[in-house]
């Protein structure tokens, strides 16, 4: 993975010093709350329900063993011994103290980690495919480009006061696992006829109050122009994005207002002035960065390992875990393992300091010293020899990292919601826990099969509920928590925004409603048709009527009265 040179170290260290001074001035009363807010936000620091929350960047989701150990250490010493991995591959600490944040950042900097631009109206952490570099369907490795963009966007002087946040995602595979169509800027790596990489450019995607999919604004951008084109696009956004209403300030609103063609034309106009200028990428720079993502020294292995096959035959729970949590690898004899951060009783994406250490140990021993964070809020060991899978499973299991439920209901995605988040309309963790509990039976879950369920505690949509086969959105009705259900959302190449099925449910009704939706599916599916395909085939109506086919709370009250 990318290692800092003295430039990177000096810049990140300078940022720590700058923020230490800003924090000092704030605590001394020289910087008002309002003046300090944008400064702390651009260093990942929110003021939440319980106090400050620190969002640490995990650039494009990649972590070394040393980095994860550092995160374990920091969560233990500065927080309450756990952290929360988010849908944007970052790590959030919920219990930090403001005066100690500069010390945390200084410690992170030693491990080449930072919290730069993880919030605020600036260019955020670039995300990508958690199987980058190992996926069989990869066209080109997105990580060097993500690192190049990370550097270009860090401390970008022109784009630190944008109308709103700006998120970039890159996919390098034929299957999009980075949700590029719901980012402000989505980049799909492609190869031209000569085998040279370039990008299909999507602009103006995003969830939130107005969920929209990104539109193609350029079919192919040769790699040399990645930075100049992106700079032109950001400049058009910075100058012409709306600033009068925070809900209308994302790029998607500008793209929608102008139309993708006109927006693309304005970007091209701007770009012509910079194209081929000094910011044009060079072979030398791409080679320098790409060299740091070279494949590890894989052993020459047979694709099938006899011991592994024997374990698969004899150990049902192991076989079940392999079926769900082990993914194919492009190198013979290797596999990618998902360490699940989902289980009843713990918030989705939460990992304790001990779990981080176990995951780091596993990576050190079995996966070339690296891990990834997936946007489904799990950890990934990307390069595990198949013969080691049985051992990895045992060790992961004893650390509570082996729920065999990747892609199933228990693997649901949820934001922190009102338990932690100051912006929330309702809790999301209670709903997550109730659903995980209801469907805890593994046979039941495996019978239901693949189903993406996403929960957001408010319309900011951090839980990506619009993209879930079933989406749950917390809303506030006169101080009470209610939940709106959406159906039919999809991620990936066929990304689609789910549709609201009707009026919201009270907290106590949500799990039943979800179960009734699943009931319709179980009764009508054809063979091994997945939930979402069944929704597509029979349409929403059957689901909708089942969801509401019960006495409502008010009716019940009347009956009881």
């Amino acid at each position: 993975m990318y290692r800092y040179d003295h430039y990177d170290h000096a810049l990140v260290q300078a940022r720590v010093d700058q923020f230490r001074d800003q924090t000092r001035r704030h605590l001394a009363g020289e910087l008002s709350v309002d003046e300090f807010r944008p400064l702390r936000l651009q260093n990942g620091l929110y003021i939440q329900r319980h106090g400050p929350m620190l969002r640490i960047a995990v650039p494009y989701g990649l972590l070394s063993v040393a980095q994860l150990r550092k995160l374990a250490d920091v969560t233990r010493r500065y927080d309450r011994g756990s952290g929360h991995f988010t849908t944007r591959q970052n790590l959030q600490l919920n219990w930090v103290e403001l005066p100690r944040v500069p010390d945390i950042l200084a410690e992170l900097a030693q491990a080449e980690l930072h919290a730069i631009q993880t919030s605020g109206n600036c260019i955020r952490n670039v995300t990508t495919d958690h199987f980058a570099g190992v996926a069989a369907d990869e066209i080109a490795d997105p990580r060097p480009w993500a690192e190049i963009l990370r550097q270009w966007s860090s401390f970008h002087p022109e784009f630190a006061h944008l109308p709103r946040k700006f998120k970039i995602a890159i996919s390098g595979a034929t299957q999009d696992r980075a949700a590029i169509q719901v980012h402000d800027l989505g980049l799909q790596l492609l190869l031209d006829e000569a085998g040279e990489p370039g990008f299909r450019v999507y602009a103006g995607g995003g969830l939130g109050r107005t969920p929209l999919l990104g539109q193609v604004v350029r079919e192919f951008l040769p790699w040399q122009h990645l930075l100049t084109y992106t700079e032109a696009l950001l400049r058009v956004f910075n100058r012409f994005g709306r600033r009068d209403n925070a809900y209308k300030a994302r790029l998607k609103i500008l793209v929608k207002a102008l139309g993708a063609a006109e927006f693309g034309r304005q970007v091209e106009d701007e770009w012509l002035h910079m194209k081929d200028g000094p910011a044009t990428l060079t072979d030398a720079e791409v080679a320098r960065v790409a060299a740091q993502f070279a494949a590890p020294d894989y052993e020459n292995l047979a694709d099938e390992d006899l011991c592994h096959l024997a374990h698969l035959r004899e150990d049902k729970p192991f076989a079940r875990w392999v079926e769900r949590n082990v993914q194919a690898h492009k190198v013979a004899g290797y596999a990618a393992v998902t360490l699940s951060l989902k289980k009843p009783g713990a918030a989705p994406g939460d990992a304790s300091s001990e779990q981080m250490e176990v995951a780091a140990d596993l990576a050190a021993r079995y996966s070339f010293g690296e891990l990834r964070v997936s946007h489904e809020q799990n950890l990934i060991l990307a390069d595990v020899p198949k013969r080691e899978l049985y051992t990895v499973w045992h060790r992961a299991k004893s650390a509570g990292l082996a729920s065999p439920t990747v892609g199933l209901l228990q693997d649901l995605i949820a934001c922190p919601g009102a338990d932690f988040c100051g912006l929330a309309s309702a809790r999301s963790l209670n709903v997550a826990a109730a659903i995980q509990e209801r469907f805890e039976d593994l046979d039941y879950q495996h019978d239901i099969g693949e189903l993406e369920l996403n929960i957001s505690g408010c319309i900011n949509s951090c839980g990506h509920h619009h993209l879930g086969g079933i989406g749950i959105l917390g809303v506030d009705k006169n101080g009470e928590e209610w939940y709106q259900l959406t159906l039919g959302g999809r991620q990936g190449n066929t990304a689609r925004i789910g549709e609201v099925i009707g009026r919201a449910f009270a907290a106590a009704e949500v799990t039943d409603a979800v179960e009734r939706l699943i009931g319709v599916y179980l009764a009508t599916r054809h063979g091994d048709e997945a939930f979402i395909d069944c929704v597509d085939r029979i349409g929403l109506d059957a689901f909708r009527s089942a969801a509401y086919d019960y006495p409502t709370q008010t009716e019940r009250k009347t009956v009881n009265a």
Partner: protein
Amino acid sequence: MHKLQTRQIIKQRRLQDDAWKVVTLVDGEAPFDVCLPVGPLLVPLAVWKAKKACLIHREYEHGTPLGIWLAPEDNPAEIAADIDDFTVIAVHFPKAADGRGYSTARLLRQRYGYDGELRAFGDIGRDQIFYLNRVGFDSFLLGEGRSAEDALNAFDDFPDSYQAAADQVIPLFRRRAA
């Protein structure tokens, strides 16, 4: 019409006295009706467009240098043709969070080739200086109550920068490779 007070500014990394007055239009006032006080003035774009001849005349007759200020929404292309006439171009930041002026500065410097004094004024202070300087500002009139002395330290907040901007047109990756 009223004038903002002139104060000390930061210019080329030093504190300096400053004589430029900022002319603003009062609500409903027509740009053409503004009367121009003596001395060097920073006029709004609308006044420049309405009274260009008169302002240029002042320069010829009295040697009063020309200055203009741009609001966040003003398009710098509108002064591209006259750009070499100005001794000072100022860009207003009514709120620190409104970052349009950063793009305005880069356009003035890097597209329209302005090499005179480029001044940022409004809701800016020590914590904005580094980026403002990078996009091309070389003079700063800080917001009310901001310490200009303290702000002088901000120019060196970072030892280098990854990306190209007006102050360093060669991005780090080209220098790194060399």
